[in-house]
């Protein structure tokens, strides 16, 4: 427990950044300096400073308000996506580890084939089917990242199912499924926490990449990715529009990466110092 006494610098910095992003996301539901969607052609492409702290975009919308609203979009999409992957992956992992035999072989062959497929590409393929909208993204990215969860949970289930404390649960007369959920699944918490932390980063990056490509959350709803895409034609006149949303994505990812490294050091001391 000595490790917990002092937060390492990277954890502190990561927590601060991620905390600020979550705070901005939550705050945007109650207050933003201006309405992030209100168009005001009288205030087009205003430079940062004055009434508009971070300037305005090509439709005269306040950049700061849009960045805050964008934080909210990124945060809730990644929360739902990661939850989806963890829940679906855990169910499949527990079931295959529990049933074993042919079900396990077939599901795992499919799982490994999906793992042998670039995540973003899988998401693009799925988006072609489900369509570009927030729920489509959550489904596509969620399914794309589920195989990693399945592999970890199944591995833990297989390694634990013959251990004494699992055996004693069976001897006590608990059903196999109860034993799995009550005693085996909690043992997946540590590796899953490590995975989930990095998954937040992947999803935020993938969501902004998809939005940047125009396959994500459709405008006028602001996301950091689609704000970057729409800033591109105005790069010469209003370079801050190309800089600010990207800075938000990069800072968030930096925070998550620092936090992820710290979480891994903490939960998996074997990997301490190893990145």
């Amino acid at each position: 427990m000595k490790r917990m006494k002092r937060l390492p610098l990277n954890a502190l910095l990561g927590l601060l950044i991620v905390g600020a992003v979550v705070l901005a996301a939550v705050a945007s539901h109650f207050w933003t300096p201006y309405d992030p969607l209100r168009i005001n052609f009288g205030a087009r492409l205003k430079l940062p400073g004055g009434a508009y702290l971070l300037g305005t975009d090509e439709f005269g919308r306040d950049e700061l308000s849009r960045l805050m609203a964008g934080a909210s979009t990124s945060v809730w999409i990644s929360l739902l996506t990661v939850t989806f992957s963890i829940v679906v992956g855990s169910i499949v992992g527990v079931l295959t580890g529990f049933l074993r035999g042919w079900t396990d072989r077939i599901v795992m062959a499919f799982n490994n084939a999906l793992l042998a497929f670039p995540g973003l590409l899988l998401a693009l393929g799925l988006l072609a089917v489900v369509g570009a909208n927030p729920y489509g993204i959550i489904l596509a990215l969620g399914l794309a990242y589920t195989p990693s969860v399945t592999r970890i949970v199944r591995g833990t289930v297989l390694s634990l199912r013959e251990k004494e404390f699992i055996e004693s649960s069976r001897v006590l007369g608990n059903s196999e499924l109860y034993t799995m959920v009550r005693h085996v699944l909690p043992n997946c918490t540590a590796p899953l926490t490590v995975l989930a932390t990095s998954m937040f980063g992947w999803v935020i990056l993938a969501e902004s990449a998809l939005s940047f490509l125009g396959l994500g959350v459709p405008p006028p709803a602001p996301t950091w990715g689609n704000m970057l895409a729409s800033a591109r034609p105005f790069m010469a006149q209003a370079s801050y529009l190309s800089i600010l949303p990207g800075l938000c994505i990069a800072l968030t990812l930096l925070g998550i990466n620092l936090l992820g490294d710290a979480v891994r050091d903490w939960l998996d001391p074997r990997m301490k110092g190893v990145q």
Partner: protein
Amino acid sequence: MFRFAAARIAMAIPTLLIVAVAVFVLIRLIPGDPAQLLLGDLATPASLADLRARLGLDRSLPAQFGIWFGHVLQGDLGTSINSGQDVLSLVADRFLVSGRIVLVAVALAAMVAVPAGMIAAWKQNRAPDLLLVGSATLLVSIPTFWLGLLLLLLFGLKLGWLPVVGYVGIAEDWKNGLLYLVLPVLTLFLHEIGVLMRMARASTLEVLRLDYITHARAKGLSERAVLMRHAFKNAFGPTWTLIGLVLGNLLGGIAVVETVFTIPGLGRLLVDAIFARDYPVIQGCLLFVAVVYVVVNLVIDLCYPLFDPRVAVE
């Protein structure tokens, strides 16, 4: 060695088959008549009937897959709804553009990142390590499409050294063609340095902690000999594997960079096809990239015994 190669190749075949099934099923999940989807809204009843017969759409789903897979094996991926071009040649042309950028960027990044990561591990928790790890973490946190925009802003708009939009093929005009490739390659290069350096550092750290390194040092070998002869060679393995994954992942992820620099590559082709609902092209791109990904990782694995003979023995 031969058995290792044969086993590794045999492992890739089921993966490819499952990928083919997945790509086939994906298009069948879309509601509507597959023939109509594949030929577009402007198709004539005659051509629709022709395609239905050709794809065996009146038969069972497994039979349909068999027919489709037979076409795929013969290199027939259909024709694009939008351009009417043969999908395979379209995809292969665009792949050459993307593949060149990805390959050059990753090769250059590996040359910088692998030694840097090893040095960082050697100097763990000291100034050079903190500096290198700090910059690597910063580099992986910057999304490629933003990095690309920043470089474009600096070198294209502010300094005016490099062209901002457009693309010229190297084959048509190699001098200008190269100029257009500088920024996209630089973008991916910088990003991948971060990814590979973190991996190289991690695997070197793991090796440096092993007993045989302590033994080598205890024997009185110079630090240089310990590192060069014993540590680095073993530490390279995981990074080498990661290079394969990075190459494949970039083929999926390069779409954003191609969008920033308006490069007609494979990623852009896929995204445009998704917009246009050009299903034969979508199917072709997904299948092609998946095959390239599996083959690249296969080649990477087959090269592994060259610097770590233990793998082939196991």
